[in-house]
């Protein structure tokens, strides 16, 4: 039973990108075009490609969770299978190619779609917990199969291929990273636009309706099961495209593309970004990829920070990072965003100090507990000190507590400013 309430998952239809304005899409395209001129190293390109793939995957996941209200613990299956099949298509064609690489994602999408049709046939009969549990079961089964069926999945080594072996595309062999980047970027735009437009179609709207109130939708002539199934298939199609893009970028697919950790992390990504918004998964994917790749260069306990971030997002900002941005739209429209500048500025320093010192507490504790005996010296924010001494820890704790109290003290001011900023009228008097 769906009892309608204002849950974050049902926030629905905020239109951050209005259809009649192609402007955001053009900006996005231009942005994607110039990005490799700003970040031109190989690793930056790889990370941007990884981001783009995660965006497509997360958007396809949000077709289920955000738009369809289906919580899946096994979405990696469709991306992974799409990727594996694309890789096999690539290898099968390499002797006698008749397409060029940019068309490979179509195959990935079709295979993702095929499996979504098959599995969705029984898994979408019900929503809610039953769907979530079936997705978990299917996810486990397919991940286990990938180790057992070696001939297809390649066992632990996975399946690899060479992307340069297909036909050249206007002189591009797709050996260099930059060419692959543009291929990925174009597909990102195609897939994102496709998914955005899908949400404006009758089936896309009805998917929202079924999410909010499946019973009502049934009495409007729509089979909730068919609606979920169709959404599921569309989602599987785009996940398959993401899988093919993965195959092109990394030229290898392994069990990790199918396992539950991958399925779980896409839930994390999507929720972090905000499931109620079309751009939510995009923001989530960018932030998550940066956190995962960059943060892990600086600290060993990055996963702990990620866990804290995720749990506090669920607790305090159930609309995700995008929700945090979106609440500023109203003050912006009212022309009162300036009311918030001063309280925000006041809170900025304690907030930054608070976060950094809290992280410092964790880092010092962790270092003191796990570093080698000769390695008492640790380096944090450019300061070198002895992690086993009490003083740095005390300083960090004092700073953290002090900034916490400062924030508590400043909170009423912010709240008042918020009330003022979101209150209609009275601004231009």
């Amino acid at each position, binding site marked *: 039973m769906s009892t309608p309430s204002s849950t974050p998952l049902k926030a629905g239809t905020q239109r951050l990108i209005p259809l009649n304005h192609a402007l955001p899409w053009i900006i996005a395209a231009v942005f994607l075009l110039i990005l490799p001129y700003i970040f031109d190293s190989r690793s930056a390109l790889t990370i941007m490609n990884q981001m783009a793939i995660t965006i497509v995957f997360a958007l396809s996941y949000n077709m289920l969770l955000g738009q369809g209200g289906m919580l899946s613990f096994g979405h990696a299956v469709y991306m992974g299978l799409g990727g594996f099949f694309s890789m096999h298509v690539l290898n099968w064609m390499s002797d006698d190619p008749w397409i060029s690489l940019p068309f490979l994602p179509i195959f990935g999408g079709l295979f993702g779609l095929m499996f979504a049709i098959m599995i969705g046939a029984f898994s979408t009969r019900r929503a809610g917990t039953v769907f979530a549990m079936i997705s978990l079961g299917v996810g486990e089964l397919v991940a286990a199969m990938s180790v057992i069926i070696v001939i297809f999945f390649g066992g632990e080594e996975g399946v690899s291929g060479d992307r340069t072996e297909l036909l050249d595309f206007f002189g591009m062999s797709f050996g260099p990273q930059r060419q692959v980047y543009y291929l990925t970027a174009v597909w990102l735009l195609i897939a994102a636009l496709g998914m955005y437009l*899908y949400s404006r179609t009758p089936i896309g709207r009805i998917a929202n309706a079924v999410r909010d109130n499946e019973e009502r939708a049934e009495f409007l002539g729509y089979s909730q099961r068919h609606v979920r199934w169709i959404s599921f298939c569309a989602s599987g199609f785009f996940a398959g495209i993401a899988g093919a893009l993965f195959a092109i970028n990394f030229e290898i697919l392994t069990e990790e593309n199918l396992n539950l950790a991958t399925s779980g992390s896409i839930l994390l990504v999507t929720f972090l970004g905000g499931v109620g918004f079309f751009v939510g998964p995009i923001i989530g994917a960018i932030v998550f990829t940066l956190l995962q790749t960059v943060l892990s260069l600086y600290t060993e306990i990055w996963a702990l920070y990620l866990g804290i971030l995720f749990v506090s997002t669920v607790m305090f900002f159930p609309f995700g990072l995008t929700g945090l941005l979106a609440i500023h739209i109203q003050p912006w429209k009212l022309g009162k965003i300036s009311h918030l500048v001063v309280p925000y500025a006041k809170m900025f320093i304690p907030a930054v100090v608070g976060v950094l010192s809290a992280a410092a507490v964790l880092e010092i504790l962790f270092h003191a507990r796990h570093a080698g005996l000769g390695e008492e010296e640790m380096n944090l924010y450019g300061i070198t000190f002895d992690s086993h001494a009490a003083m740095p820890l005390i300083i960090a704790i004092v700073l953290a507590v002090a900034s916490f109290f400062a924030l508590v003290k400043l909170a009423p001011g912010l709240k008042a400013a918020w009330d003022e900023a979101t209150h209609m009228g009275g601004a231009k008097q």
Partner: protein
Amino acid sequence: MSVPAIELRNLEKSFGLAKIIQGVNLKIGKGERHAIIGPNGAGKSTLFNLITGKYTPTAGQVLMHGTDVSGMKPYQINRMGLSRSFQITNIFHNMTVFENVRCGLLWSMGYKYSFWHMVNRQRDLTEKADEILEQINLSSRRNMVAGALAYAEQRALEIGITIAGGADIIMLDEPCAGMSHSETDLIVDLIRKVTEDKTLIIVEHDMGVIFDLADRISVLVYGEIIESDTPEKVRASTAVQEAYLGTTVEEA
């Protein structure tokens, strides 16, 4: 008499050992405004849910325009031209008022499961939805989120969604529940207006509404129909008075 819009034949429904509907026979003609009344727990909602396909009958049949629909799913029955409202307001709270109505239109206007139309670009949809908003007097609320509407407005929207699809059989489950007198009058007018030339089946506690609207009334007591006739005859029936109406009539 031509084929009835709805016909119930020996309809039965049990939940475990409890037999809620015990052998109901009823014919409701085309264009008729038929009210079902009865004390609390008589099984009115269950009967509604049996006709609309939410429940599967334990025994007996539901026929719609002569076709057996018992055991069909709600959406199949809806597609054959039957639409219902709910006792507890059942709208899409997070969508705008306009979108609520539009959702009610999509199937019947042939968009079905389409993923090649952009809903915003379909002028026929927009026009029709606005027309219905006009009918239910919610044009001024068009772009509000439905959950933010006042209660009476939500009830009106509920009826709007119900009739949007153009079904020729409309079933309303206590459309006036929880409304003030003046609101009730407005809703009754609305119901009369939007169900013109349609078959209407209505469950309602407010006897004033019933006698105002209905062509015929069926009285359901303990899962059985004890009387089914014109309002005058039902009002006069001693059996009904004994079993149910009694003082209520005078009060109304």
